[in-house]
């Protein structure tokens, strides 16, 4: 009898409490509901909803709110195409400043880079990079644990353990998440129209690189000399392509002795 009473009591009390609390929250929602700007809902529908954070806001909804409330730029989203951005600008009555479409690129071919020691810790690039600067002798060599692939919201990075991740250009929206998680800084955003990359990001003197890696830029300067458009310069011991001048002719690719310059 005692148990029966307890059971009935607890059911009644808990049911009563949840009923009352439910009513309270419904009333509160009615009373305190925040009238959202109708423009915000329209913009939210146009945004991709992938919450990648490339616009520097926490998710698409917050970006939509920021555009309506505090006047954030309509062109910050890198996922939507130009027409959608213009539509959003139209809703807001402001002109959208469009960004140039970019794509992420892994600047390393470093399976050839020499090993300093055998690493058998946590299988994460970040963890591996902390142990005396990574297990590869080159400081800017891909560690191959795929932190970038797991950070990508668009599954645009195909990766297998120990290999250099490959970026699938059709899926990449250049949100820049992989750039932030890569502990060795070998992912960059480059213009989508670019045809030639410098597949290396090492900034050491030439000779040290030759010892460490067979596909590292050792600053011979052949590309600078052969480029007919003078689009290549050496910055910080590394060839750098000025994409506004580059015509994708491919002469530098043929002349690169270490195979660092690659054409698309």
């Amino acid at each position, binding site marked *: 009898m005692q148990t029966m009473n307890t059971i009935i009591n*607890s059911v009644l009390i*808990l049911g009563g*409490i949840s009923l009352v*609390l439910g009513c309270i929250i419904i009333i509160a929602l009615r009373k305190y509901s*925040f009238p959202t700007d109708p423009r915000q809902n329209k913009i939210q529908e146009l945004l991709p909803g992938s919450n990648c954070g490339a616009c520097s806001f926490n998710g698409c909804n917050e970006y939509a709110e920021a555009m309506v409330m505090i006047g954030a730029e309509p062109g910050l989203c890198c996922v939507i195409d130009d027409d959608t951005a213009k539509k959003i600008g139209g809703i807001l009555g402001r002109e959208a400043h469009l960004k140039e479409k970019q794509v992420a690129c892994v600047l390393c071919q470093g399976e050839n880079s020499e090993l300093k020691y055998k690493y058998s810790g946590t299988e994460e690039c970040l963890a591996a990079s*902390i142990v005396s600067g990574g297990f590869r002798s080159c400081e800017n060599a891909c560690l191959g644990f795929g932190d970038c692939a797991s950070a990508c919201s668009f599954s645009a990075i195909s990766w297998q353990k120990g290999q250099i991740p490959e970026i699938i250009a059709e899926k990449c929206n250049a949100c820049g998440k992989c750039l932030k998680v890569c502990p060795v800084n070998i992912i960059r955003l480059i213009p989508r129209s670019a045809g030639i990359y410098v597949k290396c990001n090492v900034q050491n003197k030439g000779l040290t690189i030759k010892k460490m890696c067979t596909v590292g830029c050792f600053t011979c300067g052949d590309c600078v000399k052969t480029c007919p458009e003078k689009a290549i310069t050496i910055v910080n011991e590394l060839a750098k392509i000025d994409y506004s001048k580059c015509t994708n002719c491919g002469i530098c690719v043929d002349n690169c002795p270490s195979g660092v310059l690659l054409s698309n």
Partner: protein
Amino acid sequence: MNELNLFSIFISGMIINNIVLIWFIGLCSFLRVSVSLEASTGMGIAIIFVTTISSAVSWIVYNYLLKPYNLEFLKIIVFVLFIALFIQLVAMFIKKNIPGLLKSSGNYFTLITANCVMLAVAFLQAEYRFNFIQSLVFSLGISCGFALAVILFVSIRERLELAPVPKALKGYPLSFFIAALMSLAFMGFRGLFGL
């Protein structure tokens, strides 16, 4: 527990039984939110306010709803329900009336207000059989202790920003070291008097 006066309950909650450093409750928000001194001061004030009121609510629920029917075993679910509702209401109220506050505390508001400190306070005051005033003072003490711990912690962390720290210890590892040393220091207060 009725023999303790209010002052000793307050001190006990704030320092001797500091919720973060002695009981290790509320560590998630303790470590996560403590970035700048300003933000954590604001957060401390929010915690004090929310914890005190939610503790009062749970005292009333416990003593007038659960105890008379011998339903003390339901306290977990009931406390969770009431605290969740209360925080929802506070968040709604703030969003409507002081929209700037939510923005300045970033997305942390729900994290800082809906943390385990509140639930711990609700349980402890039920366990200690406090009367209403005592439980209010106790929760005030606990939340002040939380604010104190966060502010001390942030001040140390801000200083260490400029110090040359080994790369492997940067960030969270160092934070845990600091927290552990602070906890050791606070254990020195345990000899004062017990609760």
